[in-house]
């Protein structure tokens, strides 16, 4: 698996877009022909603001860095997964990235059919492992747990909220981690949660957040792509604390100090881009191995983004407590208690 | 006399039909000019061209001796042409007033002034003796009153040339008389009127001049003085026509239809048929006379299963069919010529052949089991079209492309094409030309002579009197009187239709309802 350099969780040196996390050196100059890398999205598009987009970004970073050839197919229906993967296989692509746990079965089938092609799949692990597939999985619950702890420490009303997208395993893990994390630091806290049946309904996310605020929530975690972002943006403008997801939303949703930017206390990161980049980099360097690469707190695949402009309003005690939890989590002393 | 209007060399083609073939037509100022012709002769087409609804393929129109370019009804109205259409141009869900002012609205600071409109229309319609309630919704009005609304609408627009396309088809004799009075008074005020009708008596009653069309061409121009009914009929049809119905005395058989104390509600929930009892015998024709809108529609719909019955009983050949569905009633051997041919009679987007088997498609020879036999359907179509002289390019033409008269023949052909024991005919010759009327009348009598019971509902007194063996008059949902046909006189019937029973003397109130 990959071996990212450890960094303190509260202050990762991670600038959202250009993150030199993985331990790869520059590409070997003597490489004969550039690898061809293909990406098959989950139902959705490569710029839809969900893990599809982050996977695509990770791929593009590798492509730029190693001068690879790349292409993508945006999947329209679950019945098309296999077809889209085999499309790349037939075009003799060397590495195929597939995105999402839904595409797991199709990826396994295709990997067996094309054993010489290297596959990497986001959010899926195989047991037993398949030799030419690298499963890239994340401990979203850890990320959510940290966010929950932060929220639990920050809340004055003892009510916090989470606006989720669809009820799918990664989201469920974020939510449960969030709840457990909050309770761990603040047993009296009440967590309000909403699932919204779409990742691209920021208007509904917004109403959900406002509704939570009306029920006294004063920290809102948006865990559902653009839907969640819609929620935290509205919440931040209303003046409550908010937490972003996946990437550091200070650079996306609140880019250029959009209203409420100083209310973003952090983001619960899940570096799909890093994972995809790592997988491709391994393939380029010839270190690609089948199996499961877990991106968790120990290797900074997940964790909290910096506090940015909210830092001055976050009490030192809170920062310390959070650092302590993060450290415990890294050392494996603190578990989230989330089981799916 | 000065010409109000002249049409020269008008030609109009429809796909497969030459509707107007170099027609020339002159209308003098202040005259009532009758336009005659068989169904499909091209009368309506010619008038639609004059009114700007159709563009002619060739020809010119002159108004007051100047060439007029009429591209739309808007132009026509602007040039003083008004038209009352054969098929009403009223919007059912709007009030009479809204219909009348439509396009020439009365507004007050941008807001429709409905009360002012109603006031003006009341005043206006009073002036011409065309009473109609401006606030009534058109869909709630009997056809006769709708017709009045149409005329008011045309006059309201200040028409100098008024086209009336078969306005009397839905009127009672009294209403028609009323209309003629209005027409004469309008003509007296200098308005010129084109009047289309199929009733030759009316022609002689009002016309100053007559133009007869046949097959899209002018067959001749004449005056009532020079012409006779027989001559006009021959001109229209191109052969001699027997104008009176010849019929043998009835050979009455058993009771086929027995109605007991029937009650039926109309669409608005009012009791439109309020306790009617009647009997129709095999081999006899019972005529139901009455002004439009006195429950005839509901009565017929209830008898044929199209409308639920609110009370009472309907028995056909000993079977209680009160709650039966249309199919069950049809299978008892009941045929029905419906009053509204577009709504009930035809599927306009189906070919003629299919329309001719609309109620028999599921039985041999048209279908065996679930499988339809299209060849048999086509063959049946060809046979009936020939037999009933339906003018059409082929059995595959869509029913919607036929002229009104031909559509009616199509329905009659269908209903007569199967073995029937009871025929319910509602306004069977409405809008039909003399030739077709003659034809349908003969067929009705033929059926009766073959032992079929016939219930004839008509607003045409002539039709009722010449065909029926017994006549009942319907008034406000009740049978107000009945008598053997040979005892009936037009005066008696007219009074009954107005709701006046002989016993009550002449004091009863006259009403249009």
């Amino acid at each position, binding site marked *: 698996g990959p071996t990212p350099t450890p960094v303190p969780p509260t202050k990762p040196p991670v600038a959202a877009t250009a993150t030199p996390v993985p331990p790869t050196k520059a590409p070997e100059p003597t490489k004969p022909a550039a690898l061809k890398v293909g990406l098959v999205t989950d139902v959705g598009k490569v710029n839809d603001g969900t893990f599809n987009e982050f996977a695509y970004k990770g791929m593009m970073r590798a492509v730029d860095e190693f001068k690879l050839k790349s292409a993508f197919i945006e999947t329209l229906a679950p019945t098309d997964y296999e077809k889209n993967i085999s499309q790349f296989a037939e075009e003799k692509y060397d590495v195929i990235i597939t995105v999402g746990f839904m595409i797991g079965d199709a990826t396994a089938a295709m990997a067996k059919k094309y054993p010489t092609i290297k596959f990497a799949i986001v959010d899926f692990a195989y047991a037993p492992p398949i030799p030419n597939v690298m499963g890239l999985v994340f401990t979203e619950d850890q990320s959510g747990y940290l966010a929950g702890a932060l929220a639990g420490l920050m809340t004055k009303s003892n009510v916090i909220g989470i606006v989720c997208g669809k009820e799918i395993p990664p989201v469920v893990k974020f939510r449960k981690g969030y709840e457990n994390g909050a309770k761990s630091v603040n047993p009296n806290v009440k967590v309000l949660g909403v699932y919204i*049946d779409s990742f691209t309904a920021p208007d509904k996310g917004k109403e959900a957040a406002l*509704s939570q605020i009306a029920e006294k929530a004063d920290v809102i975690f948006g865990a559902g792509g653009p839907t969640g972002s819609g929620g935290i943006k509205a919440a931040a403008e209303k003046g409550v604390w908010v937490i972003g997801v996946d990437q550091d939303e200070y650079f996306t949703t609140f880019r250029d100090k959009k209203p409420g930017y100083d209310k973003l206390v952090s983001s619960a990161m899940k570096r799909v881009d890093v994972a995809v980049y790592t997988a491709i980099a391994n393939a380029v360097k010839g270190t690609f191995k089948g199996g499961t690469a877990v991106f968790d707190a120990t290797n900074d695949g997940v964790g909290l983004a910096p506090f940015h402009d909210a830092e001055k309003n976050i009490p030192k005690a809170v920062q310390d407590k959070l650092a302590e939890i993060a450290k415990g989590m890294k050392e494996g002393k603190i578990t989230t208690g989330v089981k799916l | 006399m000065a010409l109000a209007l002249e049409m020269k060399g008008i030609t109009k083609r429809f796909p497969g039909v030459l509707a107007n073939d170099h027609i020339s037509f002159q209308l003098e100022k202040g005259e009532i000019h009758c336009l005659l012709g068989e169904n499909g002769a091209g009368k309506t087409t010619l008038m639609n061209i004059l009114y700007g609804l159709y563009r002619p393929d060739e020809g010119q129109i002159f108004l007051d001796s100047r060439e007029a370019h009429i591209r739309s009804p808007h132009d026509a109205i602007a040039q003083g042409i008004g038209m009352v259409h054969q098929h009403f*141009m009223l919007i059912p869900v709007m009030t009479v007033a809204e219909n009348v002012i439509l*396009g020439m609205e009365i507004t007050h600071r941008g807001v429709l002034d409905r009360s002012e409109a109603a006031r003006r229309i009341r005043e206006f319609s009073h002036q011409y003796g065309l009473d109609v309630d401006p606030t009534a919704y058109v869909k709630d009005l009997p056809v006769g009153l709708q017709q009045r609304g149409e005329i008011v609408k045309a006059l309201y*627009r200040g028409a100098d040339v008024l086209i009336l396309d078969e306005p009397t088809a839905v009127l009672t004799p009294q209403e028609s008389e009323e209309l003629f009075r209005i027409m004469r008074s309008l003509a007296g005020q200098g308005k010129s009127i084109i009047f289309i009708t199929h009733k030759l008596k009316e022609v002689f009653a009002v016309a100053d001049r007559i133009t007869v069309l046949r097959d899209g061409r002018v067959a001749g121009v004449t005056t009532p003085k020079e012409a006779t009914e027989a001559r006009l009929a021959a001109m229209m049809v191109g052969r001699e026509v027997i104008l009176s119905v010849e019929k043998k005395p009835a050979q009455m058989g058993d009771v086929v239809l027995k109605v007991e104390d029937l009650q039926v509600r109309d669409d608005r929930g009012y009791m439109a048929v309020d306790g009617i009892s009647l009997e129709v015998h095999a081999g006899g024709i019972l005529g139901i006379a009455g002004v439009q809108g006195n429950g005839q529609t509901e009565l017929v719909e209830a008898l044929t299963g199209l409308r639920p019955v609110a009370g009472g009983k309907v028995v056909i050949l000993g079977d209680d069919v009160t709650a039966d569905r249309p199919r069950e009633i049809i299978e008892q051997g009941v045929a029905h010529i419906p009053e509204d041919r577009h709504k009930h009679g035809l599927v306009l987007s189906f070919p003629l052949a299919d329309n001719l088997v609309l109620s028999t498609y599921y039985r041999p020879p048209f279908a065996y089991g679930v499988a339809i036999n299209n060849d048999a359907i086509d063959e049946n179509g060809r046979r009936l079209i020939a037999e009933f002289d339906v003018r059409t390019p082929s059995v595959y033409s869509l029913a919607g492309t036929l002229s009104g008269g031909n559509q009616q023949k199509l329905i009659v052909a269908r209903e007569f094409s199967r073995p029937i024991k009871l025929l319910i005919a509602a306004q069977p010759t409405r809008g039909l030309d003399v030739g077709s009327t003659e034809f349908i009348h003969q067929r009705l009598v033929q059926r009766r002579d073959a032992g079929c019971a016939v219930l004839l509902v008509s607003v045409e007194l002539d039709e009722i009197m010449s065909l029926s063996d017994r006549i009942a008059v319907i008034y406000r949902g009740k049978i107000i009187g009945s008598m053997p046909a040979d005892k009936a006189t037009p005066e008696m019937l007219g009074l009954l239709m107005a709701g006046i029973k002989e016993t009550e003397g002449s004091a009863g109130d006259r009403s249009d309802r």
Partner: protein
Amino acid sequence: MRLTRPKVLGITFLVLGILLSLYSAARIDPAQRTTLGVGTLGTRDVPAQASLVLIGLITSLSGILALFDRLRRALAPTLVTVALLDMLALMIWAARGSSVDLVGMLAASLRMATPIALGSLAGIWCERSGVINIGIEGMMLAAAAFGFAVNLYLSQWLGPRAIWIGLLAAVLTGGLMAFFHAVLSIRFKTDQIISGTAINILAVGASGFLRRAYLVKAYFVGEILPIVNVPLLADIPILGAIFFQNRPIVYMMLILVVLTNFILFFTAWGLRTRAVGEHPLAADTVGIDVFKTRYVNVVIGGLMAGLAGGWFSLETVGSFEDLMTGGKGFIALAAMIFGNWTPYGAFMGALLFGFAEALEIKLQILDAPIPHQFLTMVPYFATMVVLAGLIGRTVPPAADGRPYEKQ
């Protein structure tokens, strides 16, 4: 006894009421209270069990009255009121031992009803003139995208003011799409449902393409339209918070509902429009230009759909996502039919959807022990029930969907 619609409703309400009362009496802790938030009036505490039993009894009573024909004309209003009470019961139940903010929820209902109401107005304008418009969804989506794009580019120079031009652009985009629909269905006499379908698909493609090509690169999150408090009115308790502390498009929607009703039923243009939609030939025979009337109305409808699109990207969110209209255009159609092609009726339908959506979110937040999928189903299910139970057959304009042909 004939099973008429009121009777069926009566039985339903009766049974529901009894069940509610029995359940509450048996299963709810008498000590539990629910705190209801009523805006500036603060909060009200009610005993959960007693309230629920009472509402259950009221429900049964209304059912009995309906059963014995006692309600007649008051049937619909009564049952709607009672149904609202039952909604309240649902919330009292879900929030027992805790609190729920009622006024905020009603305000949210109005907000969420806004694009639906505007969409249904768009439908009404088109369809009252005889042109079916199932392309509302597409018009909204395209408008959301283009309005946002204009805002994005102009804000480089104009700053926050650009959003108003963006809104104008959204409105005009709706109008443009509608014009396309009009040309296809009026000039080329295309089947109007085909044309509407084409517009829906085109909007998905065009907005997605635009987003890919220009909008996402910028990572731009725009301003949104500001909240405008209506002077004086905004301070009215409860009503102020619901109606008069909103963003501009909500007000525009309210005004347009009234205005549309006024124009349709009280002006010459409206009369002509309805005439053209009912019986174009008759309208033609009195000199009304059927084509022109239809063009104008369809485009006006499109402008409203455009405004609805603006609600998404410019008033609510400040960004554009693929398919962000999320089927609201179709819901708007349902609201339009629901309201029998009248502005007020459609507005009621839109409110029903808005309310149900707010309710769904609220019940999830209150942690009601019902799978969230079922909560999300509520508005759809409610629509079917209300339609079947109370409204029944709706009648479109007679000439809706039929191209007009001149010989």
